[in-house]
């Protein structure tokens, strides 16, 4: 039997190839045809263990984008968000960021990546010169290190160093009042955990010099069983414990430590507790855990903040996370900058953003600022309080003092060789 048709690529892959080819060719046309709208690309993590990072970031962005669009858009252009999943892989984040700009015609980027992914997107912004606002990465070096600095990238995120300064001074005041001298730490074993814990103890000892760290535990990130860690801490008999575990790790840790009645035996300082993702998931939230504010609608205690939290919950059927307010704030900044520049040109927006102060429900004094010299967010509400097992979970939060934060941050930057 002879047939003229030569076997080659299968029909299935031919179709896939043709589809991909058509899309590649068509995409710039589509982008040009819709030039009246402004496309903003957003790589973030929508699948896997920290999918909540991406979904609540997306919600935060969309919540504000809809408001901006309803009010006439950015300098007359409606916003269209293009949001894609990077699966938490930096090479995917880089690829998607490039694709969003090069193929989908996105003019700006909102970077909803954490840790290594944010640095990968930062390099794309450096390469392509596109305006980029980081909204999830809390690593201080992203903006503090002058090697990272590029004129077109901004960070609209709280920072590890700010949290540590406020946490250290708050914890020191409690330590002095209650005579807590023996401390233990328990934090995840990766850069964020090590750095944040180191900085916290640094400032704790600075404000309360007779504090002593008698035990350190470094459980792995996403560790399922904390029995070993809990018993180690109990055996050391500290008077207080610091932890920067977060999300699912923190909630499993608390559930497991509850079995050993740990929270009755020492004061616990968990910087990432006061976030609804943790507060609402823990089975028996112990009373009196000290925590930094991530997002809580009772702090700042303004009607604007409470209204924002309630409206968000009404829309998405869950409370906002720390990432929600940061992403929402990024959109607010972009909208204000577009108004100020009366343009959507990336360069003009970058100029307008530098040093810009806007009204915000999340500001310590009702405003937040994009600091000019390192393009990072300052002036946001930051404080510590103690938990109760039911809403409002953290009824009273003691606000941190931004003057102290600025002084100690400048000192810290010098010690790191950043200035």
């Amino acid at each position: 039997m002879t047939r003229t048709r030569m076997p080659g690529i299968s029909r299935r892959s031919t179709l896939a190839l043709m589809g991909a080819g058509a899309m590649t060719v068509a995409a710039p046309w589509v982008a040009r045809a819709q030039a009246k709208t402004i496309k903003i690309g957003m790589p973030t993590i929508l699948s896997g263990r920290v999918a909540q990072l991406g979904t609540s970031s997306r919600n935060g962005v969309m919540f504000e984008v809809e408001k901006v669009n309803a009010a006439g858009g950015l300098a007359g252009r409606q916003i269209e968000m293009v949001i894609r999943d990077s699966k938490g892989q930096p090479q995917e984040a880089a690829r998607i960021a490039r694709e969003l700009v090069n193929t989908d015609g996105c003019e700006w980027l909102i970077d909803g990546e954490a840790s290594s992914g944010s640095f990968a997107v930062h390099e794309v912004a450096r390469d392509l010169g596109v305006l980029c606002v980081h909204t999830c990465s809390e690593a201080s070096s992203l903006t503090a290190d002058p090697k990272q600095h590029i004129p077109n990238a901004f960070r609209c995120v709280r920072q590890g160093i700010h949290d540590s300064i406020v946490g250290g001074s708050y914890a020191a005041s409690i330590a002095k009042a209650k005579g807590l001298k023996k401390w233990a730490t328990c934090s995840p074993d990766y850069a964020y955990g090590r750095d944040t814990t180191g900085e916290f103890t640094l400032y704790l000892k600075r404000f309360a010099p007779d504090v002593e760290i008698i035990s350190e535990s470094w459980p792995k990130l996403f560790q399922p069983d904390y029995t070993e860690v809990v018993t180690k801490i109990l055996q050391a008999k500290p008077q207080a414990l610091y932890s920067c575990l977060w999300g699912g790790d923190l909630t499993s840790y608390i559930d497991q430590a509850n079995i050993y009645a740990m929270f009755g035996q020492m004061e616990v300082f968990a910087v990432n507790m006061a976030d609804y993702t943790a507060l609402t998931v823990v089975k028996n939230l112990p009373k009196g855990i000290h925590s930094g504010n991530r997002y809580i609608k009772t702090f700042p205690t303004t009607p604007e903040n409470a209204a924002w939290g309630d409206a968000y919950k009404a829309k998405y059927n869950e409370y906002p996370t720390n990432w929600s307010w940061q992403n929402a704030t990024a959109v607010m900044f972009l909208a204000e900058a577009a108004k100020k520049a009366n343009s959507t040109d990336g360069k003009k927006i970058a100029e307008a953003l530098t040093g810009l102060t806007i009204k915000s429900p999340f500001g310590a004094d009702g405003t937040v600022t994009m600091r000019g010299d390192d393009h990072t967010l300052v002036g946001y509400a930051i404080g510590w309080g103690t938990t109760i097992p039911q809403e409002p979970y953290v009824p009273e939060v003691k606000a941190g003092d931004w003057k102290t934060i600025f002084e100690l941050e400048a000192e810290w930057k010098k010690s790191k060789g950043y200035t």
Partner: protein
Amino acid sequence: MTELEAGGAERLAPVRNGTALHRYRDVLIALIAFAVLASLPLLTGSKALLDFVIRCSAYGLFATSLNLLVGYTGLTSFGHGMFFGLGAYSYGLIMQKLGVPIPVAFVATLVITAAVAAVIGAICVRLKEIYFAFVTLAFQMLIHSTILSWASFTGGDQGLRGGIPRPVFLGIDLANHVHLYVASCALLILGLLAMHQIAQSPFGYTLRMIRDNAARASFLGIDVWRAKLTVFVLAALFAAMGGMVMALFVSGAYPEFAYWTISGEGIFINMLGGVSTFLGPMVGTVLLLLLNDTVTRFTEYHGIVLGIVILFFALGLRKGLLDFVAEWYAHRRDAGEGR
């Protein structure tokens, strides 16, 4: 040691007649392939397509080098991704810390990789099957953990930050997208050509014999351990080349490059494309990246889609795509000749 020491692969008579002709044919095909790829930027302005080919080069080099182990030698490595990561990190660190010209960093990376692969390989290739797979996986996790813990040197989980410098050399500016594209294509084609030469050489046929019957190879006087170690180091070199292309593409190196998921993707690519044909992994690479890029555009439930595709290949075809096509073609040709 039970293997006979006497003799080596070179004692085997040339397996095929006209090898020289084949070699020139391969070079010709490689030149044509390179010419076609290099002329793409003239035909299309799509930067996404160029990005796609750059990523195909990185993963293609990696997956094809894995096939040297899996398909040709029967060594199923679960830790091959460590050399991908090692290549990316060595290259990035050398460029960031020493600021040497790119070709120097390239060669230095290959030397480092060869040294590390020789040590790891010397331990691993003595083991068989599942033990080999697990020990390679263990070494991969060791390298991954080292990258994470040695934060002052490697940047820990945040990776090599601040961009990798790309100074101009011989008129080639890798900061230029088209230059980077052409350079990646050149590395891919050179790598594939070199790996094809290895696979078609007497040494390559020795590897196949070891895969099919290591004891017989040993009785024929082949030093099995040395042959396995050699191919382990060679495969590591090409994986490191893939890692360097990736580091150039993202202008950084991240611990995920050395994580087991990269090795898993390599195995998956080989399953998709097929391990019994030389170009199978390359076909698998294109398929996987196409699937990944198109599926993630439309849904965040890409895991389900990719899972179904794996099932289709594992249960439906029971082999990779190119294996399937090659067998089907051979079957038809035989049937045609039979008439």
